[in-house]
């Protein structure tokens, strides 16, 4: 299963980058989102997955004994998801403003600030 999931993660990375390399701004955002799925999955899997219980201590016990999922990676992913959301929301609004200001959604046309005069 790890192999399949690893390949899936790689696929998500590839797809994310593919979308970001496109011309369209919307695709860019979609790519950013895809990239964040891929990253989260990567961290989730790299911390070793178990087909086991969540890291929640059962009602009548004080410690976790059996095999359980790694809570650390989950906490990291949670933080990363939320931060990612903040940035994605900002980016989504930003493309709205960029479109309003430039009249285009084609990333290739946004090269004014880099060009030599």
């Amino acid at each position, binding site marked *: 299963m790890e192999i399949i999931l690893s390949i899936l993660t790689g696929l998500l990375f590839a797809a994310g980058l593919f979308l970001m390399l496109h011309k369209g701004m919307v695709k860019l955002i979609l790519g950013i989102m895809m990239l964040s799925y891929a990253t989260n999955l990567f961290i989730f899997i790299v911390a070793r997955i178990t087909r086991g219980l*969540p890291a*929640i*201590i059962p009602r009548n016990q004080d410690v976790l004994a059996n095999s359980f999922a790694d809570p650390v990676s989950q906490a990291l992913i*949670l933080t990363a998801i*939320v931060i990612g959301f*903040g940035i994605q*929301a900002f980016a989504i*609004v930003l493309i709205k403003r960029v479109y309003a200001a430039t009249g285009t959604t084609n990333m290739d046309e946004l090269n004014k600030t880099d060009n030599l005069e």
Partner: protein
Amino acid sequence: MRTVIFETAIKLLLPLFIAFSLFLLFRGHNSPGGGFIGGLLAAIGLFLRAMVFGTKNTIATYKIRPIGIIAIGLSVALVSILIPLFSGLPLMTGLWFDLTLPLIGKLGTPLMFDIGVYIVVIGVVLNITFILSNG
């Protein structure tokens, strides 16, 4: 969108949303849930109300100013992590009262911190959605 059915439904649903979000917040320490998830749910509830009644109305009714909510949430979280300093303990050391309330569970600074998270999330989501849906 603004029909009587929706309005009534929302009026009934909103308290439920809030109650459930609070439930998720408080149980978060022991079961899936927590401030973030709770906050999101509450915000979605308020957002639905705003979709039906309009954002201006909602802001007026509940005296909501999203940026203010964010500030409140952040200060709650900040205060919760500062409290242990007064006992000479490091920043953010968890301090607990020795009593357990029904539904809410144990009271302590980590819970207060989670409440701060809850409030910030509400503020943030409302801020974004209100602005966007307002155009």
